[in-house]
């Protein structure tokens, strides 16, 4: 029965050329226009990650090293172990390792790194052109040694300040994360009695991570931007059809056929879900064929598309319920004429508004299209599913919430007399 509701909705849409044009033709046209028109502005060369990163080193690694060696010598541990620890400490310089990573030619191609001693942190953070600041606190190396070699539980910490949303800041954060992961690996190796020589590996790992972030072309950006915007029109399409069904009394026939309320509402959800998913797949399929925009990870792409389509289904149920409750289709009309544009703007469909301020970034990610866009862009840049699992979960949770609210406000007397 639910399958019949979905099939009916699909047939109605397929036979409505005007709707098809809005849902598939318009986004494709806009992707082409915006992608070509803004290509020269957005694509700008092969170096997408440009920006300045500052590293402030507040301590003295050599003194930390000497202090720990002195402590080891004075301790009561066996002589052989003492010798191993001293050798390990002498060959391992965490701060130098971090500096080495950021000073490597591969990283310098993408960002300008300045390493400073004791400097006023506030002064640097106020500089608008610095995308990120990494603060290495006093006794950092000493704490690392104790953590790695002596098994001290307190975890040494670096502080990372992100000044803007530029790719340089995100890349620097990735490098620091990789650096942290390498230290964790070193600690585990030491605990298991394995000697390590880790001064070079983190740099390699980090650069691998950075270069995964592919440059974002205008056509790619607007493919995502327009698709997540136009998928919202499915909401008004499905909810308007439902209201017209009520007005024409076709809905009465379903009421008289004793269709349970949940089945009708779920049928509406599923119709919107299927239509949204099909729209996304057709649109991305066409863009892949025509413009060569490819998805590096099909599983992740499908997961995000499914969760985004589910949130569209949830919104359709909510709009339908408001239409039925208010006995007019004004909710659907308002959604398609105003809400879609607002959502598209804050969600970043026209340009990355998240770079304007954190408030916009937060608002954008709260919208279904914004959350979907954020996840799609990450996937296109080469991130894995773990990086977008938050958006995936958020969209699914949002769809459940919207469905529940819609189901609660759907007028019960419609189905039960």
């Amino acid at each position, binding site marked *: 029965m639910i399958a019949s509701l979905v099939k*009916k909705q699909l047939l109605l849409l397929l036979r409505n050329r005007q709707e098809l044009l809005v849902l598939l033709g318009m986004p494709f046209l806009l992707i082409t226009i915006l992608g070509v028109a803004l290509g020269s502005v957005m694509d700008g060369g092969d170096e997408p990650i440009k920006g300045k990163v500052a590293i402030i080193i507040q301590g003295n690694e050599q003194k930390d090293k000497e202090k720990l060696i002195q402590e080891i010598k004075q301790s009561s541990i066996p002589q052989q172990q003492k010798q191993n620890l001293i050798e390990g400490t002498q060959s391992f310089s965490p701060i130098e390792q971090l500096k080495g990573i950021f000073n490597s030619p591969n990283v310098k191609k993408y960002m300008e790194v300045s390493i400073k001693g004791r400097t006023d942190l506030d002064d640097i953070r106020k500089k608008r052109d610095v995308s990120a600041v990494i603060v290495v606190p006093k006794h950092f190396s000493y704490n690392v040694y104790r953590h790695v070699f002596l098994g001290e539980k307190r975890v040494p910490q670096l502080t990372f300040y992100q000044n803007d949303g530029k790719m340089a800041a995100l890349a620097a954060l990735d490098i620091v994360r990789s650096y942290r992961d390498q230290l964790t690996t070193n600690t585990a190796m030491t605990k298991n009695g394995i000697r390590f020589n880790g001064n070079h590996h983190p740099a390699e790992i980090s650069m691998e991570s950075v270069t995964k972030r592919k440059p974002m072309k205008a056509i790619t950006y607007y493919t995502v931007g327009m698709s997540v915007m136009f998928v919202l029109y499915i909401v008004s399409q499905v909810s308007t059809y439902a209201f017209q069904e009520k007005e024409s009394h076709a809905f009465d026939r379903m009421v008289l056929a004793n269709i349970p309320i949940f089945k009708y509402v779920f049928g509406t959800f599923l119709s919107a879900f299927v239509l949204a998913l099909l729209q996304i797949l057709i649109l991305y399929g066409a863009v892949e064929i025509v413009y060569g925009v490819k998805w590096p990870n099909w599983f992740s792409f499908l997961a995000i598309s499914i969760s985004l389509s589910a949130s569209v289904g949830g919104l359709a149920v909510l709009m339908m319920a408001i239409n039925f409750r208010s006995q007019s289709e004004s909710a659907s009309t308002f959604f398609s004429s105003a809400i879609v544009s607002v959502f598209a703007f804050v969600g970043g469909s026209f340009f990355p508004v998240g770079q304007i301020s954190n408030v916009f970034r937060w608002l954008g990610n709260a919208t279904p299209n914004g959350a979907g866009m954020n996840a799609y862009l990450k996937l296109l840049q080469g991130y894995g599913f773990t990086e977008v699992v938050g958006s995936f979960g958020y969209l699914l949770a949002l769809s459940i919430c919207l469905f529940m609210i819609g189901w609660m406000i759907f007028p019960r007397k419609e189905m039960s007399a």
Partner: protein
Amino acid sequence: MIDVVNITKKFKKITAVNGVNMYLNKGETVGLLGPNGAGKSTTISMIATLIPPTVGDIRLNNESVIKHPAHLRSILGIVPQEIALYMDLSARENLEFFARMYKLSGKEKKKKVDEVLDIIGLKDRQHDLTKHFSGGMKRRLNIGAALLHDPELIIMDEPTVGIDPQSRNFILQTVKRLNEEKKMTVLYTSHYMEEVEFLCDRIYIMDNGKIITSGTKEEIKNILSAEKTIVIKTERLKEEFVHVLNQEPTIRKVSVGNQTVSIIVPKQVNLFQKIFRFAESTDTVITSIDVQSPTLEDVFLHLTGKALRD
């Protein structure tokens, strides 16, 4: 089968239906007559359990259907005044969709859809989109969608509005066949008196939300058994002529049509000489005078003071 007990429906300050009582016996065709705005559609929506009455009860075999509508719904087919179909689906797709809603599937669904297409005479056009149908074909399909689950009771709300005489005749014959061959109980609302006269065993006449009279066709016509209708056709109908007719104390009702005046007078009154005199004095040219037995239309006029299609 169905008992409607003193139902009233109020929408805020407006009372659309006021204390209506009626009954339907199994296998009979009952007409509900009334002008636009009389409350017919609201009444049948309540009987169909689509809207609850503000006051009163509706019973199916002595069981209230207000709180437990499922049984009535399972034996009820409804033909709304609106075309309750999907215009972008074909006739067959529409019927298959509603058949699925009634939980029909597979061969059973196909058989039933074929049977209904036969009944409504649309087998040849079953794959055409509904939006390309004529008004009459849409109305036939609208009826077909109500027949898929073999209802025992079918409620038809003005099913012939706005269609050509040929389609209208087809629909009336179909309804009569359903009643006679399938023993379906029919509640038929219309403001076409001749349809109700053709189809119905009993008639309820409704105006301003109330039932103003009910009975068999003969019983209702007997209301005017002591009267006759004189239809005067004219070439030049003058307002003064209608005015003087209205002033004549022996005339009970006057209604004016296109160059035609109908008057209701007691059977024993002979008015011919007066009519010609009135015509002469008001410069009205009479082309014919016809004396008729009362029709249901005349009864309605007599009871409400207005024509059915006012």
